[in-house]
């Protein structure tokens, strides 16, 4: 595709400008990817690619989303020739509607440190004996951000971001760009960005960008 850039920020000046599919298919360990979509089909397309490739590489994959989204991902997994039932039964694939895999507290408590610890503990069961690493996809935390619960969303993203350096996992967080408004979300948006390693924006060029390649400055 032909870049339309001119001025001081031509594509060559961006770090790691590449197609988003490559990053989602094979994220580096420790990647904490922020996916902002404006088309719900793109959300499912990215999530499915992430999940299917993870399953093919025998990684443990966990998805946290709504019933509709989980059903769409599951269908794509099946269409890719994988046995979703078996993957779920074996524990290689978890499709859950909330972070607490055991059906515990919802909403506010869902993003608490305790809930996250419990979630991580469950997710990393069998790592590294059975699975080399973990992939996690989710969009639940984005709902807090969209609804103005910035402290909840940011606390969770920060916890994940801190632990990405010590745990063998990669994370793909989906945010609905249609719910972002400059007036409401702009100020807190910087904190979302600084707690992720890559950005897949909704732009028509279909790129992925590395965030803060030279480090975060306060």
């Amino acid at each position: 595709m032909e870049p339309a850039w001119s001025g001081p920020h031509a594509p060559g000046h961006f770090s790691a400008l590449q197609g988003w599919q490559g990053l989602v298919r094979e994220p580096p360990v420790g990647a904490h990817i922020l996916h902002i979509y404006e088309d719900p089909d793109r959300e499912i397309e990215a999530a499915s690619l992430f999940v299917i490739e993870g399953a093919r590489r025998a990684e443990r994959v966990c998805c946290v989303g709504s019933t509709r989204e989980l059903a769409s991902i599951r269908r794509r997994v099946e269409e890719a020739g994988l046995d979703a039932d078996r993957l779920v039964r074996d524990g290689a694939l978890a499709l859950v509607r909330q972070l607490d895999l055991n059906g515990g507290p919802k909403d506010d408590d869902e993003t608490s440190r305790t809930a996250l610890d419990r979630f991580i503990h469950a997710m990393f069961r069998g790592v590294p004996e059975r699975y080399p690493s973990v992939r996690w996809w989710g969009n639940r935390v984005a709902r807090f951000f969209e609804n103005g619960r910035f402290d909840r969303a940011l606390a969770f993203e920060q916890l994940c971001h801190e632990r990405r350096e010590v745990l063998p996992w990669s994370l793909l967080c989906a945010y609905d760009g249609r719910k972002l408004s400059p007036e409401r979300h702009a100020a807190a948006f910087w904190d979302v960005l600084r707690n992720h390693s890559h950005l897949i924006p909704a732009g028509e060029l279909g790129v992925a960008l590395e965030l803060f390649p030279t480090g975060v400055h306060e």
Partner: protein
Amino acid sequence: MIDVREALDEIQARSADEAYWRALERVLGTLTARTLRGTFRAKIKGDGTSERERVAQGLTELFAS
């Protein structure tokens, strides 16, 4: 006589900014780009900092190597 040079300069500057933002919206998507624009306005303050300079500074920190 009315001096229109200043007005023309301003229109030209605005057009350049708009073209710049349209290009950014192609890469980032309209809503992300608009949110980022607001983010940079909130984050990068300073007297005499133009919109263009603010965006350049923010993008450099965010993406550029």
